[in-house]
């Protein structure tokens, strides 16, 4: 059987080239050293605490899980743009992209192959860290479905991040520009939606409160928690307007999936992104749609990933303007 048995030739090439470079081995080593250090430090603390107090709280294990998941998430933010920003611009720089474009591979197949080669690499990193993540099972309190869900959402967010790098790599001609733009976009996407969510929700709360105070004087504030004569709380501006911004913030999705089945935080009775109801008095916790936070958010990320990959393929297509120009010339001829 031929070595090139994976259907997407670009995917196979990238995987074999990267394996030859040894870059992936160094990356796995450093990644696991970091994750391992944090995991064993946490576990050591729990164990020592258990020895001295004679008991180990189940509640600590989810915290360990959150720490490890967000550590991996942080490393992924740093590593994925570096892995993706050069995948296509390097092909341009070594002049192999043009040759690839003359083969039967379509721009979409090239982009798809590049995309999955990065996802496979990150998947390998995550898979290699599973023994450390599995330490959370030591004292119970976490089930494997929960862990698998977290990993699945983590991979979706990785795809979203990777698509950003691939998009810039396709649009820009040099790798340096692509790396810079990828990091800017990744950090921007991590902060801007969170900030917009916080900002918009805060402003709405302030406006609504001001209006109610104006209408009802000192009773205004407590009115938030009461009901109108019709039995339904009424707000001038719907308080949920800020929620879509949070939906596009990957940190919120990570938190939702990690905490949804996890441990109670402080005095909050909520799980996952329900905690917005704890912060903003207008937003109600416990509604059915909070349980759809992760599926909706993941759906949005997948949609955005698809869109960015499509943009990448469009950018690579050497004859993309032909259709438009031909149409134009046909129109002008008919005139």
């Amino acid at each position, binding site marked *: *059987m*031929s*070595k*090139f*048995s994976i259907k997407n*030739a*670009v995917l*196979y*090439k990238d995987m*074999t*080239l990267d394996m*030859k*470079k040894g870059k992936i081995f160094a990356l796995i080593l450093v990644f696991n050293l970091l994750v391992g250090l944090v995991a064993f430090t946490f576990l050591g603390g729990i164990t020592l605490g258990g020895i001295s107090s004679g008991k180990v709280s189940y509640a600590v294990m989810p915290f360990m899980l959150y720490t490890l998941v967000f550590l991996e998430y942080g490393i992924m933010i740093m590593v994925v743009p570096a892995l993706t920003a050069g995948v296509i611009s390097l092909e341009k720089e*070594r*002049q*192999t992209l*043009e*040759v*690839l*474009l*003359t*083969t*039967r*591979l*379509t721009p979409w197949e090239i982009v798809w192959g590049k995309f999955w080669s990065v996802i496979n690499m990150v998947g390998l990193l995550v898979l290699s860290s599973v023994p450390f993540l599995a330490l959370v099972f030591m004292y119970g309190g976490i089930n494997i479905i929960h862990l698998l869900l977290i990993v699945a959402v983590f991979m979706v967010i990785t795809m979203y991040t990777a698509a950003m790098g691939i998009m810039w790599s396709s649009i820009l001609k040099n790798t340096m520009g692509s790396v810079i733009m990828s990091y800017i976009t990744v950090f921007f996407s991590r902060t801007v939606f969170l900030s917009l969510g916080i900002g918009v929700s805060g402003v709405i709360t302030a406006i609504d409160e001001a209006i109610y105070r104006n209408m009802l004087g000192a009773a205004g504030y407590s009115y938030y928690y009461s009901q109108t004569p019709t039995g339904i709380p009424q707000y001038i501006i719907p308080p949920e307007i800020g929620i879509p911004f949070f939906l596009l913030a990957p940190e919120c999705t990570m938190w939702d999936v990690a905490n949804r089945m996890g441990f109670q935080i402080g005095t909050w009775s909520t799980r996952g992104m329900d905690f917005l109801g704890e912060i903003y008095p207008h937003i109600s916790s416990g509604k059915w749609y909070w349980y759809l936070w992760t599926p909706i958010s993941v759906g949005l990320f997948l949609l955005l990933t698809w869109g960015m990959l499509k943009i990448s393929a469009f950018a690579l297509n*050497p*004859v*993309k*303007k*032909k259709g438009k*120009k*031909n149409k134009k*010339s046909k129109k002008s001829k008919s005139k």
Partner: protein
Amino acid sequence: MLEISHLYKKFGKFVALRDMNMKVDEGELFGFVGSNGAGKTTTMRICVGLLASDGGKVTINGEEVLNDHKKLASLVGYVPDFFGVYSNFTCMEYLQFFASTYGLRGYDTDVMCQDLLKLVKLDHKKDTNVNGLSRGMKQRLCLARGLVHDPKILFLDEPASGLDPQSRFELKEILKNLSSYGKTIIISSHILPELDQMCSSVGIINKGQVVLQGTMDEIHRAAAMQSPILITVANDQIDDAFAVLKEFATVQKVTARGNILSVVFTGTKEEESVLLTSLVSHNVAVLNFYREDSSLESLFMDIVSGEMARKAKEA
């Protein structure tokens, strides 16, 4: 086989191709000649799907293929004027990879890749990293890559540029060999004497238009027509010779240097013999009658310098 009709391409205000027409028959080793910026690479890039045209069409075996990427890719092979190699691959892996981009895999493909390496005389470098190859070897490997899917037409853009004489000779031999198998090859080059030796037909492109195209014999004839006929006559018969030559409409210009007359003659070979017979029948003692040797290079220079002269006149 390949027919290009009314092809247009503009880059901003610069018109790279204007109403370009060209035809290449099956099995030809076609030399594509033109100065820098004449439109050779643009034509090739449009033909292999790397550039969109602004008008016109390209047909292969009567089928318009520019809008069907997969079909076009399987019909043409392209070796650009750069290498485009993955340095971490061995020669064999490199060919296997490109075969896989055409959906070719398995034992037969491996055997075919080995045969291609043999064809380009790199079978002994099968397991060598591409990085370790010389420039000439890399060019030959790229040639093998262009052939990996057995295309109907192989486009080579300046394949000999930057190669040493030995590598150029080896490349030329391989191309001749390929041509003998019936492969249609279109090659652009600046090294005209080499094209002159190996091509079966040639197209000369100037300012985005093919100004002359034909088989090598036709081109040589055309080149010969560009050269004046040199007629040496007896010293006392120069005026008689002038009188005879003036009778021919195909004689454009006659100049004399001593007893050698330089005649710009636009007639055919047959008309040339009629001219000689006429001189002899008028009792002009013709001591020598021949055309200066001409080549593809001289014809090309005549076309380009003619264009330059026209420009100078306009200025």
